[in-house]
Protein backbone atom coordinates (compact mmCIF):
# COMPACT_ATOMS: atom_id res chain seq x y z
CA UNK A 1 0.00 0.00 0.00
CA UNK A 2 1.56 3.25 -1.14
CA UNK A 3 0.91 6.45 0.77
CA UNK A 4 1.11 9.91 -0.75
CA UNK A 5 3.73 12.14 0.85
CA UNK A 6 3.97 15.90 0.35
CA UNK A 7 7.39 17.52 0.02
CA UNK A 8 7.71 21.25 0.53
CA UNK A 9 10.84 23.13 -0.58
CA UNK A 10 12.15 25.42 2.17
CA UNK A 11 14.80 28.07 1.88
CA UNK A 12 17.25 28.17 4.73
CA UNK A 13 16.15 31.29 6.59
CA UNK A 14 14.51 31.99 9.93
CA UNK A 15 10.81 31.17 9.92
CA UNK A 16 10.80 29.07 6.77
CA UNK A 17 9.79 25.88 8.62
CA UNK A 18 7.09 27.57 10.63
CA UNK A 19 5.38 29.27 7.69
CA UNK A 20 3.96 26.28 5.78
CA UNK A 21 3.02 24.56 9.04
CA UNK A 22 1.10 27.64 10.07
CA UNK A 23 -0.73 27.62 6.75
CA UNK A 24 -1.83 24.03 7.44
CA UNK A 25 -2.77 24.80 11.05
CA UNK A 26 -4.90 27.75 9.94
CA UNK A 27 -6.73 25.38 7.56
CA UNK A 28 -7.27 23.02 10.49
CA UNK A 29 -5.20 20.24 8.90
CA UNK A 30 -3.58 17.64 11.14
CA UNK A 31 -0.31 15.88 10.34
CA UNK A 32 0.39 12.16 10.69
CA UNK A 33 4.13 12.36 10.22
CA UNK A 34 6.70 15.04 9.62
CA UNK A 35 10.34 14.86 8.65
CA UNK A 36 12.85 17.47 7.66
CA UNK A 37 15.82 16.88 5.40
CA UNK A 38 18.21 19.78 5.29
CA UNK A 39 21.41 21.04 3.76
CA UNK A 40 23.29 24.21 4.56
CA UNK A 41 21.28 26.06 1.97
CA UNK A 42 17.81 24.53 1.70
CA UNK A 43 15.51 22.03 3.32
CA UNK A 44 12.78 19.64 2.27
CA UNK A 45 9.82 19.28 4.58
CA UNK A 46 8.14 15.89 4.16
CA UNK A 47 4.60 15.45 5.37
CA UNK A 48 2.16 12.54 5.49
CA UNK A 49 -1.40 13.53 6.22
CA UNK A 50 -4.91 12.34 5.63
CA UNK A 51 -6.32 15.17 3.54
CA UNK A 52 -3.20 15.46 1.45
CA UNK A 53 -4.94 16.80 -1.65
CA UNK A 54 -6.58 19.57 0.34
CA UNK A 55 -3.32 20.30 2.14
CA UNK A 56 -1.49 20.52 -1.18
CA UNK A 57 -3.97 22.99 -2.61
CA UNK A 58 -3.87 25.11 0.55
CA UNK A 59 -0.05 25.25 0.47
CA UNK A 60 0.12 25.97 -3.24
CA UNK A 61 -2.40 28.76 -2.91
CA UNK A 62 0.00 30.28 -0.37
CA UNK A 63 2.86 30.08 -2.90
CA UNK A 64 4.69 26.94 -1.71
CA UNK A 65 6.17 24.43 -4.12
CA UNK A 66 4.67 21.06 -3.23
CA UNK A 67 5.72 17.73 -4.66
CA UNK A 68 3.80 14.47 -4.24
CA UNK A 69 5.63 11.17 -4.04
CA UNK A 70 4.73 7.66 -2.85
CA UNK A 71 6.11 6.23 0.36
CA UNK A 72 5.58 2.83 1.94
CA UNK A 73 4.88 2.49 5.68
CA UNK A 74 6.39 -0.65 7.14
CA UNK A 75 5.52 -2.17 10.52
CA UNK A 76 8.83 -3.47 11.79
CA UNK A 77 9.18 -6.12 14.51
CA UNK A 78 10.00 -4.25 17.69
CA UNK A 79 12.88 -6.48 18.74
CA UNK A 80 16.66 -6.49 18.27
CA UNK A 81 17.54 -7.22 14.65
CA UNK A 82 14.05 -6.57 13.36
CA UNK A 83 15.04 -3.71 11.10
CA UNK A 84 18.28 -5.33 10.04
CA UNK A 85 16.43 -8.47 8.96
CA UNK A 86 13.99 -6.44 6.89
CA UNK A 87 16.74 -4.41 5.25
CA UNK A 88 18.51 -7.67 4.45
CA UNK A 89 15.47 -8.90 2.56
CA UNK A 90 15.33 -5.68 0.53
CA UNK A 91 19.06 -5.76 -0.21
CA UNK A 92 18.86 -9.35 -1.39
CA UNK A 93 16.04 -8.44 -3.76
CA UNK A 94 18.06 -5.50 -5.07
CA UNK A 95 15.55 -2.90 -3.89
CA UNK A 96 16.90 0.66 -3.70
CA UNK A 97 15.97 2.90 -0.78
CA UNK A 98 16.08 6.62 -1.52
CA UNK A 99 15.57 7.58 2.10
CA UNK A 100 13.61 6.58 5.20
CA UNK A 101 12.41 7.97 8.47
CA UNK A 102 10.54 6.68 11.52
CA UNK A 103 7.44 7.87 13.31
CA UNK A 104 5.14 6.60 16.04
CA UNK A 105 1.72 5.35 15.04
CA UNK A 106 -0.68 6.82 17.50
CA UNK A 107 -3.29 4.09 17.36
CA UNK A 108 -1.27 1.20 18.79
CA UNK A 109 1.90 3.01 19.86
CA UNK A 110 4.03 1.16 17.37
CA UNK A 111 7.07 2.40 15.53
CA UNK A 112 6.48 2.65 11.83
CA UNK A 113 9.15 3.26 9.23
CA UNK A 114 8.37 5.28 6.13
CA UNK A 115 10.39 4.30 3.08
CA UNK A 116 10.86 6.13 -0.18
CA UNK A 117 11.79 3.37 -2.63
CA UNK A 118 13.02 3.85 -6.13
CA UNK A 119 10.41 1.28 -7.17
CA UNK A 120 7.71 1.12 -4.48
CA UNK A 121 5.62 -1.58 -6.19
CA UNK A 122 8.55 -3.99 -6.40
CA UNK A 123 9.41 -3.26 -2.77
CA UNK A 124 5.86 -3.97 -1.61
CA UNK A 125 5.84 -7.26 -3.43
CA UNK A 126 9.13 -8.35 -1.85
CA UNK A 127 8.05 -7.30 1.65
CA UNK A 128 4.67 -9.01 1.38
CA UNK A 129 6.26 -12.21 0.15
CA UNK A 130 8.53 -12.17 3.21
CA UNK A 131 5.54 -11.67 5.47
CA UNK A 132 6.54 -8.21 6.63
CA UNK A 133 3.61 -6.05 7.62
CA UNK A 134 2.80 -3.02 5.55
CA UNK A 135 0.66 -0.42 7.23
CA UNK A 136 -2.58 0.20 5.35
CA UNK A 137 -3.94 3.66 4.75
CA UNK A 138 -6.88 3.10 7.10
CA UNK A 139 -4.53 2.29 10.00
CA UNK A 140 -2.37 5.32 9.41
CA UNK A 141 -4.70 8.23 9.91
Amino acid at each position, binding site marked *: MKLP*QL*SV*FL*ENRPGSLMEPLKVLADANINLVSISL*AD*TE*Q*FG*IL*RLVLKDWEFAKSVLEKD*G*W*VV*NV*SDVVAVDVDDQPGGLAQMLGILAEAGINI*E*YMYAFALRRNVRAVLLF*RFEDPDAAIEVLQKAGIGIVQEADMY
Partner: protein
Amino acid sequence: MFTVQSAPIDNVIRDREESLPRDQLEALQLTRLRDVVARVAHVPFYREAFELRGITPKSMRSLDDLRRLPFTTKDDLRRHHPLGFLTVPRDQLARIHGSSGTTGKPTFVAYTANDLQLWSDLCARFLIAGGLKPQHTVHVAFGYGLFTGGFGLHYGIENVGAAVVPAASGNTRRQIEIIQDLGSEVLICTPSYALTIAETARELGIDPRSLPLRFAHFGGEPWTEEMRQQIEADMDILAFNNYGLSEVIGPGVSGECALRDGMHIQEDHFIVECLDPDTLDPVPEGEEGELVITALTKEAMPLLRYRTRDIARLNREPCACGRATARMSRVTGRTDDMLIIRGVNVFPSQIEEALLRVEGTTPHYMIEVERPATLDQLTVRVEVLPELLSDRMDRMQRLRDRIGKEILTVAGIRASVELAAPRTLERFVGKARRVVDKRKPGQ
Protein backbone atom coordinates in the same frame (compact mmCIF):
# COMPACT_ATOMS: atom_id res chain seq x y z
CA MET B 1 63.97 58.00 -1.79
CA PHE B 2 61.88 55.85 0.54
CA THR B 3 63.25 53.65 3.24
CA VAL B 4 61.53 50.42 4.10
CA GLN B 5 63.24 47.99 6.44
CA SER B 6 66.26 50.16 5.71
CA ALA B 7 66.03 49.26 2.00
CA PRO B 8 65.83 52.25 -0.33
CA ILE B 9 63.54 52.55 -3.36
CA ASP B 10 65.68 54.44 -5.86
CA ASN B 11 64.19 56.70 -8.47
CA VAL B 12 65.38 54.94 -11.65
CA ILE B 13 64.20 55.68 -15.19
CA ARG B 14 64.84 52.77 -17.56
CA ASP B 15 64.25 54.33 -20.97
CA ARG B 16 64.89 57.76 -22.43
CA GLU B 17 61.34 57.80 -23.90
CA GLU B 18 59.85 57.90 -20.40
CA SER B 19 61.22 61.39 -19.77
CA LEU B 20 60.82 62.91 -23.25
CA PRO B 21 59.65 66.53 -23.15
CA ARG B 22 55.96 66.82 -23.99
CA ASP B 23 56.47 68.24 -27.52
CA GLN B 24 58.90 65.49 -28.51
CA LEU B 25 56.64 62.85 -27.05
CA GLU B 26 53.66 64.15 -29.00
CA ALA B 27 55.66 64.28 -32.23
CA LEU B 28 56.61 60.65 -31.67
CA GLN B 29 52.97 59.77 -30.95
CA LEU B 30 51.81 61.41 -34.17
CA THR B 31 54.37 59.53 -36.28
CA ARG B 32 53.36 56.28 -34.65
CA LEU B 33 49.66 57.08 -34.99
CA ARG B 34 50.03 57.49 -38.77
CA ASP B 35 51.94 54.25 -38.84
CA VAL B 36 49.32 52.27 -36.94
CA VAL B 37 46.49 53.75 -39.03
CA ALA B 38 48.33 52.44 -42.12
CA ARG B 39 48.85 49.03 -40.54
CA VAL B 40 45.22 48.45 -39.48
CA ALA B 41 43.76 49.80 -42.75
CA HIS B 42 43.21 46.30 -44.14
CA VAL B 43 41.44 44.97 -41.03
CA PRO B 44 37.82 44.71 -42.28
CA PHE B 45 36.38 46.49 -39.23
CA TYR B 46 38.71 49.49 -39.61
CA ARG B 47 38.73 49.50 -43.44
CA GLU B 48 34.99 50.03 -43.47
CA ALA B 49 35.14 52.85 -40.91
CA PHE B 50 38.11 54.49 -42.65
CA GLU B 51 36.32 54.51 -46.02
CA LEU B 52 33.22 55.99 -44.44
CA ARG B 53 35.19 58.76 -42.70
CA GLY B 54 37.84 59.35 -45.36
CA ILE B 55 40.65 58.36 -43.03
CA THR B 56 44.15 57.76 -44.39
CA PRO B 57 47.49 57.85 -42.56
CA LYS B 58 48.16 61.25 -44.17
CA SER B 59 44.86 62.63 -42.94
CA MET B 60 46.21 62.33 -39.38
CA ARG B 61 47.65 65.86 -39.37
CA SER B 62 47.73 66.36 -35.62
CA LEU B 63 46.95 64.31 -32.53
CA ASP B 64 43.51 65.96 -32.51
CA ASP B 65 42.70 63.89 -35.60
CA LEU B 66 42.70 60.87 -33.28
CA ARG B 67 39.12 61.84 -32.50
CA ARG B 68 38.10 61.05 -36.07
CA LEU B 69 39.09 57.41 -35.61
CA PRO B 70 36.41 54.85 -34.76
CA PHE B 71 36.09 53.38 -31.28
CA THR B 72 36.69 49.69 -30.71
CA THR B 73 34.63 47.84 -28.11
CA LYS B 74 34.63 44.40 -26.56
CA ASP B 75 31.50 43.67 -28.59
CA ASP B 76 33.42 44.47 -31.78
CA LEU B 77 36.04 41.92 -30.72
CA ARG B 78 33.29 39.38 -30.06
CA ARG B 79 31.73 40.00 -33.48
CA HIS B 80 35.09 39.31 -35.10
CA HIS B 81 35.86 36.27 -32.96
CA PRO B 82 38.35 34.68 -32.74
CA LEU B 83 41.06 36.80 -34.39
CA GLY B 84 39.35 39.18 -36.83
CA PHE B 85 41.50 42.13 -35.76
CA LEU B 86 44.85 40.64 -36.81
CA THR B 87 47.04 42.89 -38.91
CA VAL B 88 49.67 40.22 -39.57
CA PRO B 89 49.43 36.69 -41.05
CA ARG B 90 48.72 33.93 -38.51
CA ASP B 91 52.19 32.43 -38.98
CA GLN B 92 53.74 35.54 -37.45
CA LEU B 93 52.00 35.07 -34.12
CA ALA B 94 54.12 34.09 -31.15
CA ARG B 95 51.46 33.86 -28.44
CA ILE B 96 47.72 34.18 -27.86
CA HIS B 97 46.17 35.21 -24.56
CA GLY B 98 42.55 35.73 -23.65
CA SER B 99 40.28 37.59 -21.30
CA SER B 100 36.70 37.11 -20.22
CA GLY B 101 34.21 37.80 -22.93
CA THR B 102 30.72 38.97 -22.14
CA THR B 103 29.57 35.47 -23.06
CA GLY B 104 31.13 32.06 -22.61
CA LYS B 105 33.81 32.63 -25.23
CA PRO B 106 37.00 34.41 -24.19
CA THR B 107 38.23 37.44 -26.10
CA PHE B 108 41.53 36.46 -27.72
CA VAL B 109 44.48 38.80 -28.03
CA ALA B 110 47.51 37.96 -30.15
CA TYR B 111 51.20 38.87 -29.99
CA THR B 112 54.08 38.69 -32.45
CA ALA B 113 57.59 38.06 -31.14
CA ASN B 114 58.19 41.84 -31.25
CA ASP B 115 54.98 42.41 -29.29
CA LEU B 116 56.21 40.05 -26.57
CA GLN B 117 59.50 41.94 -26.45
CA LEU B 118 57.64 45.26 -26.19
CA TRP B 119 55.36 43.85 -23.48
CA SER B 120 58.27 42.67 -21.37
CA ASP B 121 60.03 46.04 -21.87
CA LEU B 122 56.94 47.90 -20.68
CA CYS B 123 56.56 45.69 -17.61
CA ALA B 124 60.28 46.10 -16.91
CA ARG B 125 59.82 49.89 -16.99
CA PHE B 126 57.22 50.05 -14.26
CA LEU B 127 58.90 47.34 -12.20
CA ILE B 128 62.15 49.32 -12.26
CA ALA B 129 60.26 52.56 -11.51
CA GLY B 130 58.90 50.73 -8.48
CA GLY B 131 62.27 49.58 -7.15
CA LEU B 132 63.00 46.25 -8.86
CA LYS B 133 66.71 45.44 -9.21
CA PRO B 134 68.53 42.51 -10.87
CA GLN B 135 69.56 41.11 -7.47
CA HIS B 136 65.95 40.67 -6.29
CA THR B 137 63.90 37.49 -6.09
CA VAL B 138 60.28 38.03 -7.12
CA HIS B 139 57.38 35.85 -6.05
CA VAL B 140 54.63 35.87 -8.69
CA ALA B 141 51.30 34.68 -7.30
CA PHE B 142 49.27 35.63 -10.37
CA GLY B 143 47.55 32.94 -12.39
CA TYR B 144 49.56 31.71 -15.38
CA GLY B 145 47.37 30.94 -18.36
CA LEU B 146 45.20 32.81 -20.81
CA PHE B 147 45.10 35.63 -18.22
CA THR B 148 47.82 38.14 -19.11
CA GLY B 149 48.87 38.91 -15.52
CA GLY B 150 51.16 35.95 -14.84
CA PHE B 151 53.11 35.77 -18.09
CA GLY B 152 53.26 39.55 -18.57
CA LEU B 153 54.94 40.19 -15.23
CA HIS B 154 57.03 37.02 -15.51
CA TYR B 155 58.87 38.16 -18.62
CA GLY B 156 59.10 41.75 -17.33
CA ILE B 157 60.94 40.49 -14.24
CA GLU B 158 63.29 38.37 -16.34
CA ASN B 159 63.85 41.40 -18.55
CA VAL B 160 65.05 43.36 -15.50
CA GLY B 161 67.40 40.50 -14.68
CA ALA B 162 65.76 39.58 -11.39
CA ALA B 163 64.91 35.98 -10.43
CA VAL B 164 61.27 34.95 -10.92
CA VAL B 165 59.49 32.45 -8.72
CA PRO B 166 56.43 31.50 -10.83
CA ALA B 167 54.41 30.31 -7.83
CA ALA B 168 51.07 30.98 -9.63
CA SER B 169 47.85 31.02 -7.65
CA GLY B 170 46.51 28.84 -4.86
CA ASN B 171 47.80 27.03 -1.76
CA THR B 172 48.61 30.07 0.34
CA ARG B 173 50.46 28.14 3.09
CA ARG B 174 52.87 26.75 0.56
CA GLN B 175 53.34 30.20 -0.99
CA ILE B 176 54.33 31.59 2.41
CA GLU B 177 56.85 28.78 2.88
CA ILE B 178 58.35 29.45 -0.54
CA ILE B 179 58.63 33.18 0.17
CA GLN B 180 60.39 32.39 3.47
CA ASP B 181 62.68 29.70 2.07
CA LEU B 182 63.80 31.72 -0.95
CA GLY B 183 63.94 35.05 0.85
CA SER B 184 61.87 36.71 -1.88
CA GLU B 185 61.89 40.50 -1.50
CA VAL B 186 59.17 41.31 -4.03
CA LEU B 187 55.57 40.11 -4.28
CA ILE B 188 53.39 40.23 -7.41
CA CYS B 189 49.68 39.41 -7.05
CA THR B 190 46.27 41.02 -6.64
CA PRO B 191 46.01 43.29 -3.60
CA SER B 192 43.29 41.12 -2.07
CA TYR B 193 45.52 38.07 -2.35
CA ALA B 194 48.22 39.96 -0.44
CA LEU B 195 45.71 40.38 2.40
CA THR B 196 45.03 36.63 2.23
CA ILE B 197 48.75 35.91 2.50
CA ALA B 198 49.01 38.19 5.55
CA GLU B 199 45.99 36.59 7.17
CA THR B 200 47.15 33.04 6.48
CA ALA B 201 50.60 33.87 7.86
CA ARG B 202 49.03 35.07 11.12
CA GLU B 203 46.98 31.87 11.32
CA LEU B 204 50.24 29.93 11.04
CA GLY B 205 51.69 31.99 13.88
CA ILE B 206 53.98 33.90 11.50
CA ASP B 207 54.10 37.68 11.77
CA PRO B 208 53.62 38.76 8.13
CA ARG B 209 55.93 41.70 8.83
CA SER B 210 58.70 39.20 9.46
CA LEU B 211 58.49 37.81 5.90
CA PRO B 212 61.44 38.80 3.69
CA LEU B 213 59.11 40.80 1.38
CA ARG B 214 60.07 44.47 1.04
CA PHE B 215 57.79 45.73 -1.69
CA ALA B 216 55.00 44.59 -3.99
CA HIS B 217 53.48 45.40 -7.36
CA PHE B 218 49.73 44.90 -7.36
CA GLY B 219 47.27 44.80 -10.21
CA GLY B 220 44.45 42.79 -11.73
CA GLU B 221 41.67 44.41 -9.71
CA PRO B 222 40.68 47.84 -8.43
CA TRP B 223 41.70 48.72 -4.89
CA THR B 224 41.76 51.73 -2.63
CA GLU B 225 44.27 53.88 -0.80
CA GLU B 226 42.92 52.49 2.50
CA MET B 227 43.65 48.97 1.32
CA ARG B 228 47.20 50.03 0.40
CA GLN B 229 47.73 51.41 3.90
CA GLN B 230 46.39 48.23 5.45
CA ILE B 231 48.60 45.95 3.35
CA GLU B 232 51.66 48.11 3.95
CA ALA B 233 51.09 48.10 7.71
CA ASP B 234 50.20 44.39 7.84
CA MET B 235 53.23 43.25 5.86
CA ASP B 236 55.69 46.12 6.37
CA ILE B 237 56.15 46.56 2.63
CA LEU B 238 55.79 49.33 0.06
CA ALA B 239 52.92 48.59 -2.32
CA PHE B 240 52.92 49.83 -5.93
CA ASN B 241 49.95 49.98 -8.27
CA ASN B 242 50.02 49.12 -11.95
CA TYR B 243 47.39 48.95 -14.66
CA GLY B 244 46.77 47.20 -17.93
CA LEU B 245 44.25 45.14 -19.80
CA SER B 246 44.69 42.30 -22.21
CA GLU B 247 42.93 44.01 -25.13
CA VAL B 248 45.53 46.77 -25.01
CA ILE B 249 48.55 44.58 -24.13
CA GLY B 250 48.13 43.29 -20.56
CA PRO B 251 49.95 44.73 -17.54
CA GLY B 252 52.36 47.44 -18.63
CA VAL B 253 50.01 50.18 -19.79
CA SER B 254 50.87 52.23 -16.70
CA GLY B 255 52.49 51.92 -13.30
CA GLU B 256 53.60 53.98 -10.31
CA CYS B 257 57.05 55.47 -9.83
CA ALA B 258 58.81 55.79 -6.47
CA LEU B 259 56.70 58.86 -5.67
CA ARG B 260 53.46 56.88 -6.06
CA ASP B 261 51.37 59.85 -7.14
CA GLY B 262 49.44 58.31 -10.04
CA MET B 263 50.41 55.65 -12.56
CA HIS B 264 52.67 56.80 -15.41
CA ILE B 265 51.11 55.92 -18.74
CA GLN B 266 53.65 54.61 -21.25
CA GLU B 267 52.62 57.29 -23.68
CA ASP B 268 55.24 56.55 -26.30
CA HIS B 269 53.26 53.34 -26.95
CA PHE B 270 49.71 54.23 -25.93
CA ILE B 271 47.53 57.29 -26.37
CA VAL B 272 45.06 57.47 -23.51
CA GLU B 273 41.94 59.63 -23.72
CA CYS B 274 39.64 60.33 -20.80
CA LEU B 275 36.09 60.71 -22.14
CA ASP B 276 32.60 61.26 -20.89
CA PRO B 277 31.08 57.79 -21.46
CA ASP B 278 27.78 59.30 -22.65
CA THR B 279 28.83 62.17 -24.92
CA LEU B 280 32.23 60.63 -25.75
CA ASP B 281 33.74 64.10 -25.48
CA PRO B 282 36.92 64.63 -23.45
CA VAL B 283 36.26 65.45 -19.80
CA PRO B 284 37.96 68.57 -18.36
CA GLU B 285 41.53 67.90 -17.26
CA GLY B 286 41.63 66.07 -13.93
CA GLU B 287 38.00 64.92 -13.93
CA GLU B 288 36.75 61.37 -13.98
CA GLY B 289 36.00 59.74 -17.30
CA GLU B 290 36.27 56.50 -19.24
CA LEU B 291 39.78 55.61 -20.39
CA VAL B 292 39.98 55.03 -24.13
CA ILE B 293 43.31 53.65 -25.30
CA THR B 294 44.98 53.46 -28.70
CA ALA B 295 47.92 51.05 -29.01
CA LEU B 296 50.47 52.70 -31.30
CA THR B 297 53.22 50.15 -31.67
CA LYS B 298 51.78 46.68 -31.28
CA GLU B 299 52.11 44.54 -34.40
CA ALA B 300 49.66 41.66 -34.23
CA MET B 301 46.51 43.31 -32.99
CA PRO B 302 46.77 47.05 -32.34
CA LEU B 303 43.34 48.41 -31.39
CA LEU B 304 42.29 51.99 -32.05
CA ARG B 305 40.46 53.88 -29.32
CA TYR B 306 39.61 50.80 -27.28
CA ARG B 307 36.88 51.59 -24.80
CA THR B 308 38.21 50.13 -21.55
CA ARG B 309 35.02 50.86 -19.55
CA ASP B 310 37.39 51.77 -16.69
CA ILE B 311 36.74 55.07 -14.96
CA ALA B 312 39.77 57.10 -13.82
CA ARG B 313 41.29 60.61 -13.90
CA LEU B 314 44.28 61.87 -15.90
CA ASN B 315 46.98 64.26 -14.73
CA ARG B 316 49.31 65.68 -17.40
CA GLU B 317 51.50 67.67 -15.00
CA PRO B 318 55.13 66.50 -15.17
CA CYS B 319 56.08 64.33 -12.18
CA ALA B 320 58.89 65.14 -9.77
CA CYS B 321 60.45 61.78 -10.67
CA GLY B 322 61.53 63.23 -14.02
CA ARG B 323 59.00 61.50 -16.24
CA ALA B 324 56.90 63.78 -18.41
CA THR B 325 54.24 61.15 -19.14
CA ALA B 326 50.63 61.62 -18.11
CA ARG B 327 49.59 59.87 -14.93
CA MET B 328 46.30 58.12 -14.32
CA SER B 329 44.53 57.75 -11.00
CA ARG B 330 43.37 54.45 -9.59
CA VAL B 331 40.46 52.94 -11.46
CA THR B 332 37.43 54.06 -9.47
CA GLY B 333 34.67 52.24 -11.32
CA ARG B 334 33.28 50.74 -14.51
CA THR B 335 30.86 52.02 -17.11
CA ASP B 336 29.52 48.51 -17.71
CA ASP B 337 28.37 45.74 -15.39
CA MET B 338 31.65 43.83 -15.33
CA LEU B 339 32.63 42.51 -11.91
CA ILE B 340 36.15 41.68 -10.85
CA ILE B 341 35.97 38.72 -8.51
CA ARG B 342 39.22 37.37 -7.07
CA GLY B 343 40.99 39.05 -10.00
CA VAL B 344 38.75 37.34 -12.57
CA ASN B 345 36.63 39.51 -14.84
CA VAL B 346 33.05 38.31 -14.68
CA PHE B 347 30.09 39.59 -16.68
CA PRO B 348 26.53 38.90 -15.44
CA SER B 349 25.75 37.81 -19.01
CA GLN B 350 28.16 34.90 -18.51
CA ILE B 351 26.18 33.71 -15.48
CA GLU B 352 23.02 33.97 -17.54
CA GLU B 353 24.57 31.90 -20.30
CA ALA B 354 25.67 29.24 -17.80
CA LEU B 355 22.13 29.02 -16.40
CA LEU B 356 20.69 28.64 -19.90
CA ARG B 357 22.78 25.52 -20.30
CA VAL B 358 21.11 23.83 -17.32
CA GLU B 359 17.65 22.47 -17.93
CA GLY B 360 15.14 23.38 -15.27
CA THR B 361 16.56 26.76 -14.32
CA THR B 362 14.63 29.94 -15.06
CA PRO B 363 15.80 33.38 -16.23
CA HIS B 364 15.28 34.67 -12.70
CA TYR B 365 18.53 34.91 -10.81
CA MET B 366 20.49 37.18 -8.50
CA ILE B 367 24.24 37.62 -8.22
CA GLU B 368 25.77 38.62 -4.91
CA VAL B 369 29.42 39.46 -4.35
CA GLU B 370 30.83 39.77 -0.86
CA ARG B 371 34.23 39.90 0.74
CA PRO B 372 33.68 38.34 4.17
CA ALA B 373 37.38 38.28 5.06
CA THR B 374 39.96 38.93 2.38
CA LEU B 375 38.66 36.84 -0.51
CA ASP B 376 35.73 37.69 -2.75
CA GLN B 377 32.81 35.32 -2.65
CA LEU B 378 30.28 34.96 -5.44
CA THR B 379 26.80 33.65 -4.73
CA VAL B 380 24.29 32.94 -7.48
CA ARG B 381 20.68 32.44 -6.45
CA VAL B 382 18.50 30.94 -9.12
CA GLU B 383 14.85 30.04 -9.30
CA VAL B 384 14.28 26.52 -10.55
CA LEU B 385 11.17 24.97 -12.07
CA PRO B 386 8.80 23.41 -9.51
CA GLU B 387 9.22 19.92 -10.95
CA LEU B 388 12.94 20.09 -10.17
CA LEU B 389 12.31 20.78 -6.52
CA SER B 390 11.90 17.13 -5.78
CA ASP B 391 11.60 15.31 -2.46
CA ARG B 392 15.01 13.80 -3.11
CA MET B 393 17.99 15.64 -1.74
CA ASP B 394 20.49 13.97 -4.05
CA ARG B 395 18.70 15.18 -7.16
CA MET B 396 18.65 18.75 -5.93
CA GLN B 397 22.30 18.62 -4.87
CA ARG B 398 23.11 17.32 -8.34
CA LEU B 399 21.24 20.23 -9.91
CA ARG B 400 23.22 22.65 -7.76
CA ASP B 401 26.50 21.00 -8.74
CA ARG B 402 25.55 21.15 -12.42
CA ILE B 403 24.84 24.88 -12.20
CA GLY B 404 28.11 25.47 -10.34
CA LYS B 405 30.04 23.50 -12.94
CA GLU B 406 28.51 25.45 -15.83
CA ILE B 407 29.33 28.76 -14.15
CA LEU B 408 32.91 27.58 -13.70
CA THR B 409 33.07 26.57 -17.38
CA VAL B 410 31.58 29.76 -18.77
CA ALA B 411 32.85 32.40 -16.33
CA GLY B 412 35.94 30.66 -14.97
CA ILE B 413 35.01 31.21 -11.36
CA ARG B 414 33.67 29.12 -8.50
CA ALA B 415 30.28 30.26 -7.26
CA SER B 416 28.19 29.19 -4.35
CA VAL B 417 24.84 28.24 -5.90
CA GLU B 418 21.58 28.64 -4.04
CA LEU B 419 18.36 27.16 -5.38
CA ALA B 420 15.28 29.27 -4.91
CA ALA B 421 11.64 28.33 -5.28
CA PRO B 422 9.70 29.80 -8.20
CA ARG B 423 8.51 33.39 -7.76
CA THR B 424 10.65 34.03 -4.69
CA LEU B 425 13.31 36.32 -6.21
CA GLU B 426 12.71 39.98 -6.78
CA ARG B 427 11.03 40.95 -10.08
CA PHE B 428 12.15 44.10 -11.84
CA VAL B 429 10.16 46.65 -13.73
CA GLY B 430 12.42 48.06 -16.43
CA LYS B 431 16.16 47.52 -16.04
CA ALA B 432 16.91 44.49 -13.89
CA ARG B 433 19.27 44.97 -10.96
CA ARG B 434 20.47 41.42 -10.63
CA VAL B 435 23.87 42.23 -9.13
CA VAL B 436 24.37 43.09 -5.50
CA ASP B 437 27.99 44.01 -4.80
CA LYS B 438 28.42 44.20 -1.04
CA ARG B 439 32.16 44.89 -1.19
CA LYS B 440 33.22 48.42 -0.32
CA PRO B 441 33.11 50.67 -3.39
CA GLY B 442 36.31 50.53 -5.33
CA GLN B 443 37.64 47.49 -3.49
